[in-house]
């Protein structure tokens, strides 16, 4: 296993993705908060028009602009860039799916099998490299986003507890969705299908969860804890950086369990199938 991991990390270090992924993380980590900053500047500019405020037709709209302006600060902007469905998450999961499926085309998995590397090890090693790459790039993105939000909007009032919540949930959710992307890659062996599923799955599940979350939140506490086992639901806590203690334990444990199950299922499937 050590040999395969060493070879796979070497391969990743030598590949273009090693440079492309951090660049994307930095660029998106900068652009997304700056878009909010642009919106903030525009709203600020509009709210400065006294004539519009005195006009009854516009006053209602401007008062809602004021309320938006009050919530737009470095912390809210930073947190709003974190969920998986917000730009970077789906991009990096798509890239990791591509990274996992590409060796079917280049024949690298074929070479590994011919070199008598057990198929289970091939699958696990690829998963580990993808998860590590996704986590590292997520950290780069998060730090860039935090710094940009700080520079654009000024002081960020965030507690250690909130940072811990963001860190725990981000690491755990990225791990799960990367495992999904790797599973899809090995199951489908198709680049387009892997990209579509890797990108759409986080977006769709989070959209559905965002619709049902108000109902869940108002349901008995136990229901919310059960739902915490779903990575898409964890993104809601991630966006608010506010989660009960139990969530910080249940969420990573659930995601580790999902990831292990997915990896075991993927490796078992890969072991059985013929390779072209």
């Amino acid at each position, binding site marked *: 296993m050590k*040999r*395969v991991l*060493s*070879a796979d990390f*070497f*391969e990743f270090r*030598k*590949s*273009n993705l090693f440079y492309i992924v951090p660049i994307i993380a930095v660029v998106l980590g900068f652009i997304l908060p700056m878009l909010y900053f642009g919106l903030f500047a525009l709203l600020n500019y509009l709210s400065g028009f006294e004539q519009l405020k005195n006009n009854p037709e516009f006053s209602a709209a401007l008062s809602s602009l004021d309320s938006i302006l009050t919530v737009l600060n470095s912390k809210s902007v930073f947190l709003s860039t974190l969920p998986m469905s917000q730009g970077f998450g789906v991009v990096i999961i798509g890239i990791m799916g591509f990274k996992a499926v590409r060796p079917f085309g*280049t*024949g*690298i998995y*074929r*070479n*590994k*099998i*011919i*070199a*008598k*590397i057990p198929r289970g090890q091939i699958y696990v090693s690829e998963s580990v490299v993808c998860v590590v790459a996704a986590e590292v790039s997520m950290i780069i993105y998060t730090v860039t986003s935090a710094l940009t939000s700080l520079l654009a909007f000024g002081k960020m009032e965030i507690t250690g507890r909130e940072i811990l919540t963001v860190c725990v949930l981000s690491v755990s959710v990225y791990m799960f969705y990367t495992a999904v992307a790797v599973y899809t890659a090995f199951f489908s062996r198709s680049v387009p299908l892997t990209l579509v599923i890797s990108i759409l799955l986080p977006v769709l599940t989070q959209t559905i969860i965002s619709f049902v979350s108000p109902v869940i939140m108002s349901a008995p506490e136990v229901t919310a804890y059960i739902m915490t086992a779903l990575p898409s639901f964890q993104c809601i806590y991630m966006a608010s950086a506010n989660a009960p203690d139990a969530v910080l334990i249940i969420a990573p444990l659930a995601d580790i369990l999902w990831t292990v199950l997915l990896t075991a299922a993927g490796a078992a499937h890969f072991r*059985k199938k*013929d*390779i*072209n």
Partner: protein
Amino acid sequence: MAAEADVFTEKTDTEFLFSTEGITKKYKLTTANDGISVSVPRGRIIGFVGENGSGKTTFLRLLTGLSYPTSGSFKFHTESGKCRIGAIVETPAYHPSMSAEDNLRFQAKLCGIDESKVPEMLKTVGLQDTGKKKARFFSLGMRQRLGIGIALLSDPELLILDEPTNGLDPQGIIELREFLKQLCRVKKITLMISSHILSELSLLADDYLFIHKGKLVKSISAEDLFRDMGKQIRFRCEEDPSGVFPGVLQKNGEWYVLSGPFDYPSLLEKLSKLGVTDLETGTETLETRYMSIIYGGERA
């Protein structure tokens, strides 16, 4: 056609590298390999011959562990019962965004081989001057050599090359052939090479396995094969010659083909009675021999 055959039946078990027993691979609608049983001798160059879709690549996939047989088994006659295999199946596998050196270093790490072997292997396959050039910018010949370098790095006992001359120019084909001959001579590895370019294969192989519609139809040493290949006479005539040459005549369009050896006085007498309009003589080629084996009803 017989499905069971040995390349050298007089050899002992230790002289064989591997044997297969009734290897069968079925897909939903087709049977790609149908009960192939063969023993392959060590240190020889085996030409694996068959038309497109005859089941050559499927057999090589099964041998390398890329696919699983529906039934049957492989047995490697080594101490461990395992065999170090290097292979290029269909196309050479490499990282397009990595240099030749990095591709070999990757393979060395994967196989747990000392990376100090990499420069030597680059030299062996003639890619020592490629520097940091990425493999995606290599010519077809260079890619083929890189694939062979990757396959050879683990010091294989069995090297499998599936259609290695595909896409190569004449110069590349000659270079590859000379390289493989030298390789087998120096390293004493068993080379299994599949191709449907028989003229090319005839310059390389020591033994031949003929496969047709998933079945092994003949296994023969090059020596025996070429000894059998004799003179041929092609002719066109006014009369139907099948009565004069019962069971030995092949038809190729308007031409009739007779394979030697001949009793010339008797032959000429028979031909003169048929009203022959055109007559050509020549030596049987591997292609005609192949056609005769596959379609001519010859048995293993």
